[in-house]
């Protein structure tokens, strides 16, 4: 996993609640057996006016200019500001893969759906939960200021806004540790292989039908 310690960039506001993973990456792109290359199809149905298909050359597709991602103000944005229940729906990890591939390594919202939230951390991304009132303020600031940026410092758990203010955020200590050090979950778990084996033996003795 790619380590994450500091991250800075333009904030793109996506002002809608319940952004689902079908919206983030439509199903036709899930036929890929790879982990990469999903960025051009991020928010495909909102972003383009035509119907997207896998392996399409997106550079010539008609853009939906009303969609925030296509607006000149937010070109190069790499922090996404969202509303409640961001990432709801399917467990498809293609959703964080497409966000990360596009460049959004930091997402900020009042709440995230459970599976999506977890999937982000595993992929070296930082989803940050802030109070609804703070999110409302952030939307106001981003909408009012061209080129509004946020600098994220994971070590100190602080956001530095381009207007000079700062916001503290919470993050799970284990997830923080993994992100800062780019640690692989599986390698960590396998350090407890003996513990797992011991549990498994006991479990099998107690409930042999689970191992039929």
């Amino acid at each position, binding site marked *: 996993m790619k380590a994450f310690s500091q991250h800075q960039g333009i904030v793109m506001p996506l002002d809608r609640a319940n952004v689902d993973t079908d919206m983030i990456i439509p199903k036709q792109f899930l036929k890929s057996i790879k982990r990469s290359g999903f960025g051009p199809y991020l928010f495909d149905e909102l972003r383009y006016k035509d119907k997207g298909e896998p*392996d399409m050359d997106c550079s010539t597709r008609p853009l939906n200019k009303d969609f925030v991602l296509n607006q000149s103000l937010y070109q190069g944005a790499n922090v996404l500001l969202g509303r409640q229940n961001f990432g709801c729906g399917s467990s498809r990890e293609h959703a964080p893969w497409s966000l990360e591939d596009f460049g959004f390594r930091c997402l900020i919202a009042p709440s995230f759906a459970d599976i999506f939230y977890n999937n982000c951390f595993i992929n070296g991304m930082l989803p940050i939960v802030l109070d609804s009132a703070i999110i409302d303020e952030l939307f106001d600031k981003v909408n009012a200021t061209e080129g509004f940026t946020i600098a994220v410092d994971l070590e100190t758990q602080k956001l530095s806004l381009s207007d000079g203010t700062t916001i503290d955020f919470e993050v799970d200590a284990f997830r923080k540790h993994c992100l800062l050090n780019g640690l692989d979950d599986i390698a960590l778990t396998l350090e407890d292989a003996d513990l797992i084996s011991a549990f498994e033996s006991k479990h099998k003795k107690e409930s042999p039908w689970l191992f039929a």
Partner: protein
Amino acid sequence: MAGKTLYDKLWDQHLVKQSDDGLALIYIDRHFIHEVTSPQAFEGLRIAGRKLWRVGANIATPDHNVPTTTVERSAGLDGIEDPIARIQIKTLDDNCDELGITEYKINDPRQGIVHVVGPEQGATLPGMTIVCGDSHTSTHGALGALAQGIGTSEVEHVLATQCLRARKMKNMLVRIDGALRRGVTAKDLVLAVIGKIGTAGGTGYAIEFGGDAIAALSIEGRMTVCNMAIEAGARAGMIAVDQKTIDYCHGRTMAPTGAEWDTAVIAWRDLVSDDDAVFDEIVALQAEDIAPQVTWGSSPEMVASITDRVPEPAAEKDATRRNSLERALTYMGLKGGQPIKNIPLDKVFIGSCTNSRIEDLRAAAEVVQGQKVSDSIKLAMVVPGSGLVQKQAEAEGLHQIFIDAGFEWREPGCSMCLAMNADKLEEGEHCASTSNRNFEGRQGFGGRSHLVSPAMAAAAAIAGRFVDVREMGEG
């Protein structure tokens, strides 16, 4: 000390390691695998040179991408027209063959939607921890199991370690008191719950469904309810074990037999929340208040009774919610105040891991029997959840009832629930669907989905619009 909830018990029975910061390692008994979320996990395992931890824990079947027309299915894998889908399914076959994982391949009679296949084979049993790279894994909780959807990295983690890294969720009890009225089903019940608590209402919780109305449901009905726990934001939904659960499991291919069965049953009977168990949240609904439900918007929480109207955005005070309402109505091509019964329909889909089991097909066939699909419906299709469901339905003559009425009778798979294969809506088309998600574009680019029960979908196919199934037939 307070008693334990069903979730507490399942968690404690599988706890391998608990860290001081709340993080835990949970042992996974069963891992279901399908073609879409697994290839990258197998590849990751291979690249890292890691071994599969326990081959017997895994069961695979292709479902998301398989074609459902008999013609395209007849030549098996090689007959799949979409080359990208064919590669993905072949990749699953190759991975399972290489590692020795049991897979019900495309035209195996046991193939089907993974959440239909698991319980059917007895691969889902009470007391198990179950994961799958699919959010609707919550379905299996209907048998008193702790079942949850995971992402592809977690699929790889489970393949390599047989464990999941998790934090314990909070406990929510959704209690449905009383008895459902005639014509009101498990689907209507769970849609009503989602309408009440919202699509994020269960975030951070494991939901146990309880109460008289849940106890009265069949096991298949309970699967429909738990299937949609994720639509309320909860990774896991579950229902206590009772005699119905035990009877359902008895005699299934992978269920224990003989003395082992007797031991298992004793253990399973304890899979209920203790009387003095404490829930962090309790939501109660009265079954008699629930009418047949129809979703009108682009989120499962945007749901109303068949007798209701589409809401007026102007009446919504909260700006973000009003914004969502307006956006949904524009996308759906509907007007605030429009009666649900006036929503025009183009297609009807009966299938998906929510509603493609034999009882679902029986309920739909009962409504359809002797009638014809309305001329205004361009396509009405029934997609059984598995080869075995298909076979059973054909043995009962249900397929003929559907075919005679003008429905297409298909081969098993996820089909138009997520429209990865050729079964999809065209832009602007309205569909009465027994599936679980009405998100924008879910059933096809620009498609407009309305989630309903199998009986309501069948009735809509006949009438060409939504009708109250309670007013049909014996009336």
